[in-house]
């Protein structure tokens, strides 16, 4: 019984998925030429809201499944994050799903919930087996969702889009995903074989053999695919370009946060003692991600691809925080991920709105947005400032904190290169703003987002601005969550470390 209490959230998401499936099956088939209402979609939205509220009301802690799962504040924090991402993604996608695939809406929501089940298990998983199962549970529905709109009717306005991009997006995601899963599994096999356990708690008891270290590198690479870090980033822009934008909004934040939580679980929690082995490759990858992401985003002309590369760069910043490899750094990583969630989701949803209005996804789609729709332009302004890391929006604190944490832990070179690359990155964010605020060419219609979409963008906006003005509560929560996974360092240790250098 205790175990069920600990596992209540993943189980509740499963239950919600089952209910959604049943409701979808029981709905009468829509008559011809009739637009079916997004009943299942709203059901999912309300379900996710109540679950999100539930996590604040009911916070059990403890272990389940013989220690393979542990519900701690770390897990709760991330679960709230995933639920929020799912909720915002659902709100943003309601209208799009109804338009693109009116006859099979239920499938989309089922896939979304299945993916969420995997995500909600991940941060609590303390066993490599459970981690990989949950990871695949999260990943496989995403392949389907990416290709979901395949050759169905395009939404109004975006008619210039050649058909079949979605299939390509899904296929690419699937191929890279399957390969990386294989790599991860191979790495895990080596690791478990050499360490003699699948339990994260016991993983670092034996010293790492060279073979196990090799396995570790494989694991890092395999997991890196999901978060789109550099050697495995090539699916990111293509998928972002091909799949339906509201889904991309979700894809660009939630699985990345989940991937980061797994990296933290395995490397910081499981193998924290062996950081000499994995820290150098992690630092290199962080540097490459920031560099490649920022530099390749510069020449992009499709805003989705640009945000894709920018996402690669942002994950580089997160890895910088992870490279701090202490509780403080992890707390800041969680803070960053939270900020990134609202920011990037919001940015993609605005992009979706402007594209729906008929402008496509190039810079010209933003043209004159500040005249056509001042609120949307203002929201986009805040999201982009946040991505660029400008003060008084959440992205500034996020970037500041991860850099500070990494600097504290002695990763000075990494932080300096990060700051420099972030300034380069500012250039392409400003280009979007320039299009929105300073050009007014063509005569594009005023974007009219659906109410649910408006709500989603509004919530993201409030979070980005509100938390930027008053980040205190979130910092405390994320620091606490980080300290639950990794034992906190003694006060002043980081500074002492720096002084010794």
């Amino acid at each position, binding site marked *: 019984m205790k175990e069920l209490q600990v596992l209540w959230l993943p189980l509740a998401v499963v239950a919600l998925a089952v209910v959604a499936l049943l409701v979808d099956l029981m709905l009468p088939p829509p008559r011809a030429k009739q637009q079916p209402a997004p009943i299942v979609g709203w059901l999912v939205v309300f379900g996710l809201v109540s679950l999100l509220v539930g996590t604040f009301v009911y916070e059990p802690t403890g272990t389940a499944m013989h220690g393979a799962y542990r519900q701690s504040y770390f897990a709760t924090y991330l679960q709230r994050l995933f639920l929020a991402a799912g909720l915002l993604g659902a709100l943003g996608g309601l209208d799009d799903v109804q338009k693109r695939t009116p006859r099979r809406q239920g499938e989309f929501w089922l896939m979304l919930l299945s993916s969420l089940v995997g995500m909600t298990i991940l941060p609590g998983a303390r066993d490599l087996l459970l981690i990989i199962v949950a990871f695949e549970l999260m990943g496989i529905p995403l392949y389907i969702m990416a290709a979901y709109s395949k050759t169905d009717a395009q939404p109004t306005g975006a008619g210039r889009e050649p058909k079949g991009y979605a299939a390509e997006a899904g296929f690419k995601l699937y191929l890279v995903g399957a390969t990386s899963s294989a790599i991860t599994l191979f790495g895990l096999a080596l690791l478990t074989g050499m360490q003699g356990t699948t339990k994260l708690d016991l993983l670092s008891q034996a010293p790492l053999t060279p073979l196990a270290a090799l396995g570790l590198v494989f694991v890092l690479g395999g997991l890196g695919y999901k978060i789109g870090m550099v050697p495995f980033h090539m699916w990111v822009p293509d998928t972002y370009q091909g799949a339906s934008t509201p889904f991309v909004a979700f894809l660009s934040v939630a699985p990345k946060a989940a991937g980061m939580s797994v990296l933290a679980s395995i490397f910081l929690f499981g193998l924290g003692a062996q950081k000499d082995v994995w820290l150098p490759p992690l630092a290199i990858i962080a540097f490459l991600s920031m560099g490649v992401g920022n530099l390749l985003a510069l020449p992009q002309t499709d805003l989705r691809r640009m945000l894709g590369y920018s996402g690669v760069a942002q994950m580089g910043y997160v890895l910088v925080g992870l490279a701090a490899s202490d509780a403080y750094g992890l707390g800041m990583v969680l803070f960053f991920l939270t900020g990134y969630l609202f920011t990037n989701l919001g940015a993609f949803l605005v992009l979706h709105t402007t594209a729906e209005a008929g402008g496509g996804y190039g810079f010209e789609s933003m043209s004159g947005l500040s005249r056509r729709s001042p609120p949307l332009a203002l929201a986009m302004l805040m999201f982009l400032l946040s991505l660029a890391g400008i003060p008084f929006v959440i992205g500034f604190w996020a970037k500041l904190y991860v850099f500070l944490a990494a600097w504290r832990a002695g990763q000075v070179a990494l932080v300096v290169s990060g700051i420099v690359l972030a*300034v380069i990155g500012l250039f392409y964010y400003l280009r979007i703003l320039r299009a929105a605020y*300073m050009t007014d060419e063509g005569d594009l219609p005023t974007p009219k987002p659906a109410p649910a979409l408006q709500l989603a963008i509004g919530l993201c906006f409030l979070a980005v601005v509100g938390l930027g003005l008053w980040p205190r509560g979130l910092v405390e929560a994320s620091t606490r969550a980080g300290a639950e996974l990794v034992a906190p360092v003694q006060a002043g240790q980081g500074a002492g470390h*720096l002084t010794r250098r």
Partner: protein
Amino acid sequence: MNSHLLSIIVAAPAIAALFVMLTPQTAKLAIRVWSLIGATISFAGSLVAIRSYDTALGGLQRVEDYPLVPSMGVHLKLAVDGWGGPLLVLTGVILFAGVLASWTVKTRDREFFVLLLVLTAGVFGVFVSQDLLVFFLFYEIAVLPMYVLIGIWGSSHKVPPKGPFKFVWKLFDIGGKQYAAMKLTLMLLVGSAAIMAALFVMYLKAGGTTFDLGVLGATKYDRQTQIVVFPLVWLGFGTLAGVFPFHTWSPDGHASAPTAVSMLHAGVLMKLGAFGVMRIGMVILPEGARFWVPVVGAVAAINVLYGAFAAMSQTDLKYIIAYSSVSHMGIVMLGAATLTPAGWNGAVFQMVAHGIMTGLFFALVGLVYERAHTRAILKMGGFANVMPAVAAFFTLGCLSSLGLPGTAGFVSEFMVFLGAWKSGHYLWAIPGVLGAFVTAIYVLRATRTIFWGEGPSHDFHELSDPKKTEWGALVILGAGLVILGFWPRLILDYIEPGSVEHLGKVLAPVATLARLP
């Protein structure tokens, strides 16, 4: 004494910006009135703050402390000190005059006033914040709206492509307002990146528990750290202060910016840079400062001369003023580098004096440009016959610029040169004085070309003296120049205890610092 006055000063423009944002686009007058109310509250507040500052007591007064992120030691700590007071008033004056000067903005005026007010809120914040991170936050807020302000409301100044690098003109649209905006933003943000790195070191080496400027100032950083970090702060903030060779954004930026933005930028924002170098760099890293001052001073001397000579060869009115700003900011940095009470008093006084003077200049240039539709001085001539008041104010500004006794410019330049002479590097006074001499050449030549001589040619039809609100900016700023010139004690009484206090931290062991006669 714990009122919320400083918060009100900082928040008033921001709140006014919010009101302006909520005002419908068509309510032209309401937009301006809201902006003016915000500006007035801040201006009045800053006057109250400086009047109630107890110079005998010195130090930080009116301390307000709100924990922002206590777990990291970030506090929204505001206080006014000897330096902050006069600079607050300067910002208040310039904002007030700037709102009046931009009364006639036509395109997208609502957004213009919103950004203007947000920017000023950031400037006020920098001058009163006593927490390094909050200081940096406000600094960024003050810097970034500039991009949009220049990009939208600026004016392009096409430069004919020539030389082997012709293709670069096409590539970057050199001379265009968006080029200027992007150049300014990117250069200043590279500076911010340097500041951020310095900020990390200062924070973590002091124990990583607080950003409080007082605590950081009391921390003894080891010599090597100071020597490494000081240049970061100097060049980081110095980029905004127009330190050679990182000044190149400023002529383009100022020339492209709309009137009120040029006023604020040259008048107040560049001071943020110098203020940052002195308040953060020199006070917190005294050993680094003492190590680097020969370089700082030498570069400042280059600034003074280079800016003056560059201004001499310009034919575009705004570029002349912009380069003269580079030259005059060199005087500020020169004063800072002397590490003497006279030099520091002069530096801060020059910030205020130059702020008012440049504000006046850019307001006048805006007026002239609006009526003449050109900024090429060679086409002008004899404008004094039809716009005598503008000519009079312009001449006043010029006289202050070249440091004529009786104007504010004289007081500051005199003190800076005095400080330079008294410091170990008396040779610095020579390029300084030479720079003032060259300044006299170019400002007087510009005045003569524009205003005196044969009456305006037939190309100009709309020339006239200022109307209604346009007078406001000119009168306030012009009066400021004369009053400060004849009665410098008005603000020097506040600046001096600040300088002495801060300098005491820089010069250890504390030398006996003579007060000014």
